[in-house]
Structure formats: structure tokens, C-alpha cells
């Protein structure tokens, strides 16, 4: 009897995949989109002002209009009152501007080059993280951005191995399962790759740190992101079997707090997706 190779075994390694090439790509991206790269590098320095960022942003019409669109979106509740780029930067905050520049830098704004449902799950993770941030002593703005960028690494893996990643996705629908499969196939999880990229671009370690410990249930630093992925999974994965958030957070959060968050995320995710992208 001939043993059939298991799919996992098939995914265990991707000889054609070169992590060095992926990592090198992170550097070349910056060269291709200098405005976005400049925003990424200066946005969070202490002496940055809305005027400085707006002046830089003005050179990239697509990115600037996206920031304006986001500032006037329901997420910030300003109802069309944001009419200048500088005020838009003030409203969305510097970290968000930096996040949007990162999105542009990594081609995340082109949905055709991303895994299926990438933005639906990304905005859900981001909104959930932002809504629960204060429960975990975090700043909502930072956690929104972390959520938006958490899957940058996934996108990078997908860019470099579209067919392989699609196959991986088909076999592992849950977030943690997918991360494990990524490690098996690429030697690194998408989330870990995100951490490397963000750190390389100078995002603060306090923001990047949770990415490395998201699958370590004993780590309280990863708890918020774990819950955010749990909320996103409940909303975006058909037939998903919910995990008790108390287990995910070592009792820091209870199930009864999740209801209103699920509701708000369900309402706001699509709007946020539209604001982040051009269409």
C-alpha cells in the first residue's frame, strides 16, 4: 500500500522560497515609494507636527486623498468637516498616517495582489484591537495601526509565493493554524515577518512586540492581538468555532465584554476598508 503524501508534508517546505529575497524586498519598496517611505521614517518622531506631515503627504496625491477620506470617514466621526490635509493629519493622528504610508509602501492597497478576504479580516482585527485597547492599557490609535499592519508579512509571503500561499490558506482557515503552516513552509510566520519589517522601518518596539508573542498564550503582551484575531475570526470565517476569550487572555477579558465589540466591528469594518483603499 502506497502512503499518500499528506498536504502538510507538501507544505512543509517551499524550496523555491527565498526569505532573503523577501527581506531584501522590504528595502527596495522604500526606494520605489519615497514619499510613503519618508512619512514612515519621520511620522513618530517627537518633533513631528501635522504641518510637517501634511507638507510631505501633499507630494503623494493618492496617499493624501486616502488620508483625507479616512479623516472624514465614520470611524473618526468628523462628518465631512475635514477639509485640509493638515487637519486630516491631526484628526487621524500621526501613527495612523504612518500606517497608511506603510500600507502604500507594501502595496497592501492593491487587493488583487492579496490573499482573499485580506482586508475584511485586517480591518476587523484592527477595529477589535482599537475598541479593546484601553482594557489592556494600550492606546486605541496604536492598536488600530498594529491591527491594520499585522498582516503585512502575510501579504509579503503571498506576493512571493501566490500559488503556494493560496494552497496554504485553503488548508488552514484559522489564524493560528495558518501561522503554524507558514512557519513550516517558509521558516517564518507572516506575523513574525511583519514584526521584522516594522522594526526595520523604525516602528516602536512597544508596538511591534506583541506580534512576536501572539501565539504564546502565557504572554500578556500578545493577549490583545489574540482577542482581536479571535473577534475577526468569529466575524469573517464561516463555521468558525469560537474560543473563550478568557482562555486567550488569561482571564483578563470575559466573554460578556465581547458582544458589543463584535457588533461595532461588524458595523465599522467595511467602512474602514473603503477608507483605507481607493475603491
Amino acid at each position, binding site marked *: 500500500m502506497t502512503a499518500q503524501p499528506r498536504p502538510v508534508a507538501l507544505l512543509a517546505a517551499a524550496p523555491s522560497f527565498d526569505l532573503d529575497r523577501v*527581506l531584501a524586498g522590504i528595502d527596495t519598496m522604500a526606494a520605489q515609494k519615497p514619499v510613503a517611505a519618508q512619512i514612515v521614517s519621520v511620522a513618530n518622531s517627537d518633533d*513631528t507636527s501635522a504641518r510637517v506631515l501634511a507638507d510631505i503627504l501633499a507630494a503623494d496625491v493618492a496617499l493624501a486623498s486616502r488620508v483625507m477620506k479616512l479623516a472624514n470617514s465614520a470611524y473618526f466621526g468628523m462628518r465631512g468637516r*475635514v477639509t485640509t490635509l493638515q487637519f486630516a493629519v491631526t484628526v487621524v493622528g500621526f501613527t495612523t498616517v504612518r500606517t497608511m504610508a506603510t500600507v502604500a509602501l507594501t502595496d497592501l492597497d492593491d487587493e488583487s495582489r492579496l490573499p482573499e478576504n485580506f482586508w475584511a479580516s485586517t480591518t476587523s482585527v484592527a477595529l477589535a484591537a482599537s475598541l479593546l485597547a484601553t482594557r489592556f492599557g494600550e492606546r486605541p490609535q496604536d492598536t488600530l495601526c498594529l491591527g491594520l499592519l499585522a498582516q503585512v508579512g502575510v501579504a509579503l509571503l503571498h506576493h512571493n509565493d501566490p500559488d503556494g500561499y493560496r494552497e496554504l490558506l485553503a488548508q488552514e482557515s484559522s489564524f493560528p493554524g495558518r501561522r503554524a503552516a507558514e512557519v513550516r513552509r517558509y521558516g*517564518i510566520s507572516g506575523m513574525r515577518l511583519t514584526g521584522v519589517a516594522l522594526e526595520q522601518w523604525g516602528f516602536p*518596539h512597544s508596538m511591534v512586540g506583541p506580534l512576536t508573542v501572539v501565539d504564546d498564550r502565557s504572554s500578556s503582551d500578545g493577549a490583545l492581538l489574540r482577542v482581536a484575531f479571535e473577534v475577526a475570526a468569529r466575524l469573517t470565517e464561516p463555521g468558525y468555532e469560537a474560543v473563550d476569550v478568557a482562555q486567550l487572555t488569561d482571564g483578563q477579558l470575559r466573554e460578556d465584554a465581547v458582544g458589543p465589540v463584535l457588533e461595532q466591528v461588524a458595523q465599522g469594518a467595511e467602512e474602514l476598508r473603503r477608507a483605507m483603499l481607493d475603491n
Partner: protein
Amino acid sequence: MTAIPTAIADPRVAPEIVSSVFYGAAVSTSLALLVAETVGGEPRITWGNEGAMHLLGYALEDLRDLPVAHLLPSLRGGELKLLLRRERTARMNLPFRTASGVFTECVVLCTPTPTGRMWNLRIVSADNEQERALRATADVHERRFATLTERSPVPTLLSEQGMRLAHVNDAFCSLVGLQSEQLLGTGWMACIHPDDLDGVIEQVAVVLGGGDGEAQARLLQRDGGERRTVIRFAHLFTPGVGAGFVASIEDITERLAFETRLAHQANHDPLTGLPNRTLLAEHVAARFVRGQAGLACLFLDLDNFKVVNDSLGHAAGDELLVEVADRLRAVVRPGDLVARFGGDEFVVVCEDVDEDDAVTLAERIGAALAEPVRLGGVDVRPHASVGVTVQADEHACADDLIRDCDIAMYQAKDGGKGRITVLDHHARAQARDKLRLVADLRDAIERRDIALQYQPIFATADGISTAVESLARWQHAERGPISPTTFVPLAEESGLIGALGSLVLDETCRQLAEWDRLLGADAPRRANVNVSALQLDANLLPLVVAALSGHGLAPGRLSIEITESALMKDPDSARTVLQQLRDLGVQLAIDDFGTGYSSLAYLRHLPVDCLKVDRSFVAEIAEGHTEITTAVIALAGSLGLSTVAEGVETPELAAELTRLGATYLQGFGLAVPMSGAGAAAWYAQRASPPGSAVPGPRAPLP
């Protein structure tokens, strides 16, 4: 010490310099350096400086050959590649495992050598004391701020981005009755009344731009309640993050309700709850546009309200007013205003109507009011006289319109009770003219432009005049002389009689005192002053006392003349006032005696000294009818009173009246009224030759 790898030696740099730099790096304790190399397919440490040994706790011998993965266990699987890049420098935050097994958080900067076979790792502990201290201070600040707002009884919001809240305190949660999870982000926007939200966002926009601001907003509570609040915003800037705001909320619901109550009280009648005169004026003024039509006022005055008040009591009167107010409210069209003008007067204001519509409404009101109302066990049918005015071109302002419907109401009243009258323009002109005259009269009294003239009164016994009657005269600048028969009733109607009476009393006393100085014993001994029925109250005595004492006169120098009809209005009260004056020593005379309906019984009890026979009876003497004058003189004589015959026009009449027994005579035939100075000259002239028994007619002196 390990030899310097020649590969990194730059041929342009002298070996001594390279050696010197390496030595400095090797012994530095503030700088931790490691060199790694792939040995046997695995990256291993090949060298470390003093700083690295100090930081990680290893001796150089133990460090050498140590797999990099052992120092950095968090880089699992192929993740070491992330740090040990061949093409570029990598920077990562990583926990290092020290010799004791304890982890220390570090930032590591990994630079590959040009050959790509070795890496230089520069390690900085992320856990240094300065950073810890800074973080601790920041944490303390944040905790203080959180404690301050969390426990503050003032509802407080904190946004870090746009309208998105990062914090709400318990006080805000309990104000709106929601949990903080429902309010964070933009959730709180649902608590703001939709009509107020734009104003709030407007202010937030200003505040995020760097200013301060406040907005009034209604907050919706979970239980359906609503609170009126002032939200005060302050700009909040976090370096490297952006702008937000802190907002504190003041609940002003109770204060506004109180102010509204006060405003309502100021503009409404407490009895009926209807708008009062002030609000009526504002309401009409707000709708009045000169030259337009369609605005109408209906002025209602209840007929016989005084009867209800007097017979059934004030409580019943109030009940009636409330009932009338309710009926008016029910009968007018939506949007019409019903106001209580005062007393038993109401005004209805309607828009977009013509005269026919207004009259129809007035009729409807009349019908609604006529339904019986039971008061104190009695069925009363209220009726009202209604004056109607529709705005026309001649109305210059809102007040004109209200004034005209008032006039129309008086016209209705004059025509008989329970009538509806649309303003007659002629009557309006008359009424307006009267209003102007009242204003002029008020000015004349204030400026003491009312002049007094004095007509001598003669004793029949010796023909000598020792008394005068003060007569008020008003010379109007444009209209010429105005008769007292016009301006005295006008003063009575318009509440000016007190001031006029006071002026006459005071001026008469002043004149008497002046005559005393000029004429000595020849000055008139007494002056008669007319007093209106309306002055016959408790104020009269102090007024008389003040006038006399003000000019140093004895009470006997004054005689107060009161008409017979005035005395009969309220005989008991009149008697009290007269008695006080009499007790003071002032003389009292009944003027125009015989023209009213005196009760002889009362007359006997009234403390008077003199009856003045009305000029109409005196005039009858010339026609041969002496009956009434004879009877009056006889009546006075039997009561011990003196008499003054007025209107003595001829010497014959004077002789006849003397014959009939009149005590004193007064009339144009004897002496005309004169100014104070004229009278002084007249008395001075009369004093020199002894007078005849019956005075003859004389020409007036200036």
C-alpha cells in the same frame, strides 16, 4: 586577544589606527559587541568585548563557539536569518539569555562584514535605568490623570483622535446610563441629540486645530431621558502622536429649567397661565411688518365682571377668569395667541386673516363665552365686549394695533354690552387725539404750566370780598385754552388727578402767603379749592396739611369744595375724610348743590360749612323762578350753613340773591377770575375806599 580580521582592514586606513579603534572597542564596558560567524553550518559567537561579557555574564572562553541561537532563543527555526542578514544591517529588539539563564531585553544592531560570512552585533540593553525612570514618570503621570478623571464627579471625556474617545469616566457613564465600552470610539456620538451633533463636531474641529471651545448639547440617556449640558473642550497634544481633546460636561438641565420657569413667570399670568402683556407686545412686534396685512387683534373685556367679584367674592372672580381663559384657548385657531391683558381684559392675536375672519372668530368667542358657568352655586353667563382691529396701512407699529383694538373695545362697550365692534376710524382719531392730550397734560403738570386764576367771593352783608375761588386754567401751546371741563375729567381718567390736585392746593397756598406779604390785612382771608371725588381718600388730609404748613398758613385759610355727586359716591368714606379736614380747621363747601341726588339725611350728618347754589338755579331767577334757590338757601339756614350763589351775572341778580338771604355771591357780574398778581392789585385797590353794601360789576384787572 583575537587578531584583527584582515578582511575588514581598509587599505586606506593605517594599521595603527585600526588597531587603536579595535583596542578601544575591545575594552569598552559601555559598548557591548559580539562577532558571529557560521561555523559548521551554524552561526556561532567567535568574539565578544568587555562590554558584552559584562552584559551577558559570560567569560570570553565560554562565549566563544556559543551558538547564536542559544543567546537568542526567541529566534526559533529559521528566524536567525532575520537578524543575520547578508546584505544589510538588521535592527531588532530581542531578549538575550544571559549566563545565569535570566533574559535581558536588548536592541541589537547586526551588520554583516563585506564578505557576508561574519556579523558584528552591537547590543544595547533596552532595560537601562534612565529609560526605566522615564517610563515610570510617564506611567505615574498617566495614572494620576486617570485617577483624577475616573474619580471626578465631573463627567469627562478624553479623545486621542478626532471624535474618537479613548477614555470616559464613571460620571459620564452614569450621566447617560451606558457602559464605557458602548461609549468609547465614536459610540458616545449616539448620546448626543442629532440636532446638536453638528455643533459639537464643529467645536471639536476648532479644538483639534489648537483652540478651546464649548458647545451646548442635549445628551440622550438610555432610559429615554434627556439632559441639557454644556461641553467644554480643551486641546490636548501628545508629541509624536497627534491632537485630541479633553472635554468636561456640565449638566445645566435644572438651571435651564429654573431659568425657563423664571422667564415663563415673567411673561405669563400666574392665575390663568396665559401670556401676559409683555409677551403679547413681543408676539405682535415679532409678526408686525409695516405696510402688510393679515395680522388682527381682538380685545375682550368681560361685561359685569365687577358684579361677580363684588357679589360672589374674589375667588369666584378668579374662577371665572380661569374658565374664560380655558374657553378662549379652546375656541381660537391653532397658532393664535391668547393673552391676558390685565384685570378682566384679554387679547387674541391671529395671523393671515381679513376683517371678516376676525369678526367670525370674535363671534365664535362670544358664543363660547356665553355658555353658563357655575360659580358659588350660581349660573353666570359671561359676556364680553370685543373690539376688533385688522392691520392697515396707518398702523406704524405693533403698539398701534393693540391700542386700536383697545379703542374698538371701548366703542363696543359704549354701544352696549356683549357687542363686537370693528374699529371706527373717526373714533380712533379721537381716541388718539385724547391720548396726545393726556401726554401734554402730564407734561403741563410736571412743568407747572397749569395756571391758577382767582375769582373773588363777596359777602352780601357788607359787599366786601374776603375770599376767592381758585380756578385751574390750561393754556395749550397749540390748541389754546383747554377748558377745565375737558382736562379735569381727562386727569381723572388718566390717573393724573392726584398730581393736578396737589399742584392746585400747593399753588393756592403759595399765592395766599404771597398776598399776605403784599397786602397784609387786606389780603383775601380764604381761598376755595376744588377737590375731585377721586381725591377724597386718606391721602387728602396729609396733602392739605403739607400745603398749609409748606407756606405757613392756618387751616382756616382754606375751604375745600367737593361736588355733591362726589360726596354721594361713597358717603361713609367721604364723611370720614371731611371730618378729618374739619377737625383740622379747614372749611368745607358742597359745590354745585342741587344738581345731584343728595340724601338730606346724609347732608345733616356731613361736617360741612357751606352750600354753593349751582349757577343753573341762579340763572332761573332772572326768568322769575326763585323756588329752588330760595329752598336751598332756606335749607342751608335751617342746618346752620352759609351759602354761596354762583353765576351772578348782573347787579339785579346780586340784589335779588341778597334779598333771598344768600350769604355770599360769586360771578362774572361782580368780578372775573384774575391772575395772582391781578387779584393782588384788585384787592389793594378795593382796600382804600370803603366798599358799598352790594358790589357792582367791575371790569377785570390784569
